[in-house]
């Protein structure tokens, strides 16, 4: 008798899980597999038609052409820079929101952080294009100091990407800090630690997993981005741009190229997982 409800619930569970699992394997992982598979095909150099002959030329070219290495390294450094900047901005901001500001201020601040997420990506990027332009407010504001803004280029791309992904860093750090018991901070003070010591030995270790979790977003989103770079990056070329320009001409090469960010992100996730950042997700 007890077996019947068990098998019944198992059936229900299977029915419940089948559609999402099917979706995950077929549509989600399946498309990734097709993408990687097409990297092993060739392209007719004249008609741009995909020729289904198995070869590893694309990966060979990817690994031996210096320009691809340069672009991959540039993309990686931009993603790393964006992540570091966002972490440095998010920590004090989240600390202020969670521990310093009174209860009344907490909600408006949280809303202020989240609101930009509701605005369109392109609108925000183009707003920055206007601001960073030759006649833009950035140059106008810096002119009295005898300075000139960064103009369009790599610096501009880092600034705008840092702006775009900042909420994804603030929110997890804020959540971690809010959960941090006040008693721990009091204990630290009772034991004679100053503000710096408490920050270094108590707060930072406690929010480290949250920072790493936030960095997964800032890092992977920057790694795959190509629109921001197209809008404010000047002549900067990132992996995303090269993939986008190759998709129409040489799909297999584009597929091989897009394996690069996939590999980078998998490595990053593995590193972050070891640090325990994914436990709280």
């Amino acid at each position, binding site marked *: 008798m007890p077996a019947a409800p068990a098998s019944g619930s198992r059936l229900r569970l299977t029915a419940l899980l089948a559609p999402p699992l099917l979706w995950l394997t077929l549509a989600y992982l399946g498309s990734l597999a097709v993408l990687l598979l097409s990297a092993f095909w060739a392209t007719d150099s*004249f*008609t*741009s038609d995909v020729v289904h002959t198995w070869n590893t030329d694309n990966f060979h070219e990817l690994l031996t052409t210096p320009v691809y290495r340069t672009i991959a390294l540039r993309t990686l450094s931009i993603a790393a820079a964006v992540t570091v900047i966002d972490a440095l901005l998010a920590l004090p901001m989240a600390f202020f929101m969670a521990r310093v500001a009174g209860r009344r201020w907490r909600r408006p601040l949280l809303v202020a952080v989240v609101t930009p997420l509701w605005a369109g990506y392109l609108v925000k990027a183009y707003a920055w294009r206007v601001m960073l332009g030759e006649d833009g407010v950035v140059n106008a504001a810096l002119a009295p100091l005898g300075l000139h803004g960064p103009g*369009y280029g790599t610096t501009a791309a880092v600034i705008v990407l840092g702006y775009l992904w900042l909420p994804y860093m603030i929110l997890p750090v804020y959540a971690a800090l809010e959960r941090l018991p006040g008693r721990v901070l009091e204990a630290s003070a009772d034991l004679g630690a100053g503000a710096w010591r408490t920050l270094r030995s108590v707060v930072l270790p406690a929010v480290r997993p949250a920072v790493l979790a936030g960095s997964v977003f800032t890092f992977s989103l920057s790694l795959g981005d190509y629109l921001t770079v197209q809008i404010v990056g000047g*002549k900067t070329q990132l992996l995303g741009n090269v993939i986008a320009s190759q998709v129409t001409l040489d799909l297999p090469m584009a597929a091989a190229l897009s394996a690069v960010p996939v590999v980078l992100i998998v490595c990053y996730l593995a590193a972050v997982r070891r640090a325990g950042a994914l436990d709280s997700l």
Partner: protein
Amino acid sequence: MRKRKMSAGRSVAAVCALLLTAAAAGCGSGGDDGKGGHAPEKLGKGEGEVNIIAWAGYAEDGSNDPKVDWVHPFEKKTGCKVNTKTAGTSDEMVSLMKTGQYDTVSASGDATLRLIASGDAAPVNTALVPHYKDIFPALKQQPFNSRDGRMYGIPHGRGANLLMYRTDKVTPAPDSWRAVFDDAARYEGHVTAYDSPIYIADAALYLMRAKPSLGIENPYALDQKQLDAAVALLKKQHKAVGEYWSDYQKEITAFKGGDSVIGTTWQVIANLTKDEKAPVKAVLPKEGATGWSDTWMVSSKADHPNCAYRWLDWIVSPKVNAQVAEYFGEAPANRKACAETSDPDHCAIYHADDEKYFKRVHFWTTPIKQCLDGRKDTDCTDYAQWTRAWTEVKG
């Protein structure tokens, strides 16, 4: 039934395309049967709609400017609803045509050969396009729009890639491409260039004059040594480039705001930038220029061929061809259009009938292995190599 026939045609086309790239002789006359489908013998009833791929400004329906609308009159006259997809680059056009969802495309010469070779474009029966007889003879049966004596589209218009500059920031007024190549450092960070592998031809064109020892005869027929020289020149230019453009809106705002002060442009962009009150001027430098000659081609997989043919005839009819040419800033293809332009001097300004002028314009052509300048003793670089070189130029 029809579908099955098409796919047989497609595989023949694929084989042909392979032969074409492998052998200098190409497909031969016998291999033409079925390649890219057949041109219809006569037109049937309209299908009620037509899907077109066009350059910005080629299929205006009044949404950009209420006074500029030749799509609605067409719909009213033929009952074919027009669905327009605006493409930014030739490469985008080629890949969109591969989807088979579009009936006709306003392809430039750097796309046409690829579309013909891949079987995506069908030969056109010019007898079904009554206005074809009024097209300038110099645009008919060109290497980039025909093969073996058959037209693969209806010529639409032509123009040059000009040199545009801010009159307040660039003095003296430039009259040579030298300003964006050897002298580019003077405007460091504010030079712009067209973001496409085909831009390599602009460097090659400059080298034809600046470095005759390279022996470049045709900017689209470069052997490895000549391509390397062009790439080296472009890498030098790269240091001075502020940004590359492929989106014409981006170039307008860049020139308006002073982020770009000198670089390549199309007449339409120069016109729109001037409309925005920016002090710019566009010139055809003394070396001549690269340029484009556009052709309306019909897809070999067209679902609405009858409406597509009606569009072809409509877009080159004198009045409409004049409207497009004036709005876009190009030389019309129909000689009767010159009588219909609102500015009576339009055809003179754009040298519509001036073959001597267009001798100085080297129309975009897909670079292929067999040298287009007739050299038999060497292999030329093809578009795939140009694409890789372009990635390298941008670094």
